């Protein structure tokens, strides 16, 4: 019990479970999964599909945050990606052909990769602060997306493209398979190679890393490029979901959701140690939260209040102070007379200094 409580994913997972319970109470069949035409259906499957784009964006965001950066432009990149792909499909003579669709996807992904490279250039070469560097693309990117679609919502009918949004593979939604697959691959690469450690070193102490021979600039650059690419992929999933490219609203505020997912997952925004499994849980929490609002039937007027309270609850429970309290409480009175100093490995800047 004690170890469980101490685990860094305890509270995020607890939040997820609590939300699922709340949903099940409001709608008893919530967790039911049915099989229809060999596909799985049901709210949990919906949630997996809803999580997919957010998970991709949060994945890129985690890596960027590890290097002490932040990427505000992902929402705009999502919009650009959808706009490019759908405009290409819409303007092609044969929207139903897989070749067209693959070309559209490749086009969108390459462009988004370039947008990421652009961000990386501003941050790592010109040395502009990440928040401002990516604010530029956040503003202009949506303009570009609107330019591509002429401000209208571009709609297409293309079965191969629709597969991305509502297709199934091995009974699971294709979008979820793609996102969770990419996530697993990246997590594997990052943790099985030295990439993760080098990223963390760059985030914790850039000067020391540079002197240790870490190619910090290249790494930083790569990470922004990756964030762009993943956002592009997310953009494709989002536009395939409704088969429409909405330059104004696609991916709106997804950067905030992604950052929130990263933070709920226990990665500090100050860079350094990151936690991809936490990000996964964080993304699931946020997607479930969105669903909860509808299922539990919270009035739109208080929805933001409700979101705020959940976020505050999760973050407060995760805070070192609360952890220490709870740890002390679960440890029981018998062991020591004076409560030992809380060890807060979770906060990089606070271990040496006790704030009382």
């Amino acid at each position, binding site marked *: 019990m004690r170890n469980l409580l101490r685990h860094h994913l305890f509270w995020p997972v607890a939040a997820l479970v609590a939300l699922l319970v709340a949903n099940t109470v409001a709608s008893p069949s919530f967790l039911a999964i049915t099989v229809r035409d060999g596909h799985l259906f049901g709210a949990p499957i919906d949630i997996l599909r809803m999580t997919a784009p957010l998970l991709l964006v949060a994945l890129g965001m985690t890596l960027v945050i590890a290097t002490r950066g932040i990427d505000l432009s992902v929402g705009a990149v999502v919009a650009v990606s959808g706009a490019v792909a759908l405009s290409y499909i819409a303007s092609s003579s044969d929207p139903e052909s897989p070749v067209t669709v693959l070309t559209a996807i490749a086009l969108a992904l390459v462009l988004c990769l370039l947008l990421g490279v652009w961000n990386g250039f501003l941050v790592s070469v010109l040395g502009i602060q990440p928040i401002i560097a990516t604010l530029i693309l956040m503003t202009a990117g949506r303009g570009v997306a609107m330019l591509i679609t002429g401000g209208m919502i571009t709609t297409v009918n293309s079965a191969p493209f629709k597969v991305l949004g509502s297709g199934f593979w091995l009974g699971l939604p294709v979008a979820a398979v793609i996102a969770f697959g990419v996530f697993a691959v990246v997590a594997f690469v990052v943790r099985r190679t030295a990439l993760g450690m080098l990223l963390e070193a760059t985030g914790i102490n850039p000067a020391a890393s540079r002197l240790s021979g870490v190619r910090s600039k290249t790494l930083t650059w790569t990470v922004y490029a990756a964030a762009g690419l993943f956002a592009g992929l997310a953009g494709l999933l989002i536009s395939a979901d409704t088969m429409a490219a909405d330059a104004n609203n696609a991916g709106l505020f997804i950067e905030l959701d992604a950052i929130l997912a990263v933070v709920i997952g226990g990665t500090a*925004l100050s860079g350094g140690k990151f936690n991809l499994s936490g990000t996964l849980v964080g993304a699931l929490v946020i997607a479930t939260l969105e669903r909860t609002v509808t299922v539990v039937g919270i009035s739109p007027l208080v929805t933001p209040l409700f979101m705020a309270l959940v976020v505050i609850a999760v973050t407060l429970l995760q805070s070192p102070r609360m952890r220490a309290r709870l740890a002390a409480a679960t440890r029981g009175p018998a062991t020591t007379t004076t409560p030992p100093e809380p060890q807060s490995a979770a906060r990089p800047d606070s271990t040496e200094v006790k704030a009382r």
Partner: protein
Amino acid sequence: MTTSAPARASRALKIPTRLDRRYLPVVGTFVVLALMLVVGGSRYDNFVSPAVISNLFINNAHLIVLAVGMTFVILTGGIDLSVGSVLALSTVVTAALLQAGWPPAVVIPLGVGAGTVIGLAHGVMVHYFQVQPFVATLAGMFFARGLCFVIAPESIAIDNASFVSLASWVQIFGGWRMSSGVLIALIVVGIGFLVLHFTRFGRTVYAVGGGEQSALLMGLPVARTKVLAYVVSGTCAGLGGLLFAMYSRSGYSLTGVAMELDAIAAVVIGGTLLTGGTGFVLGSVLGVLVLGLIQTIITFEGTLSSWWTKIVIGVLLLIFVALQRVLSLRRT
């Protein structure tokens, strides 16, 4: 300034007699701002006129106040994402209470105080619970916005006579105009400047941003300072809401969406580092003027479609940041 010429003068660091490096980003901002005015003036008629410059201040008075508050928080190494929502909350509270017939003398402190209270909550979360500022204030942002909806989803007009007369007070000097909002904003800037540079609290704000742990080991009151910085920012957001309510004579729950980004951008453009510890309030004011000027240029251009507007804002921002960067790199 030292009293006697020391024997070890040869080892003393040679202080450059030129401008202090710390002021470079601000000077960079100023130079580029001036350049923009010159370029704008040569492109459009009437661009560099007292009326346009006065309007620049009148239209951005609330943002100036937000930026001053944001500067405090960013200097401590934090960030406050809630200011846009808190501003909206303040406008809604003000408008709703005035509509309910409360006197302005009671309503105004309540509107501003709402911001103070939320700021205090942020400070407590950030310092005592060690919630990351981004998250704490993001929660605050949802919270304030939610509260707005609960109080009044629809926009409320303000027609309280004394409030309106306060709001429409204008002083005219030739072509120049100064509204009550601008006057308040300038006073806030002045206070912000004095507090940051001439009080222990102000210097501790810088110290905390320079290194929280160091500041703590130096025996400075880190806790109080950090909490107070968020209180300042919240109060400024509340005051910004008051100014916006005066400016628009209404309260509306959807006001100021994404305005926190404008405030942050202004502060950063003004040369403050997001990592904390370096920056100036006056820089932030320049930052606000830059953003305002970009908007003015867009209006004067008069032919941009919606998307080109966004793209041009992005490009101007880029040119600005790049130029500023080049200027400050050159000199160092």
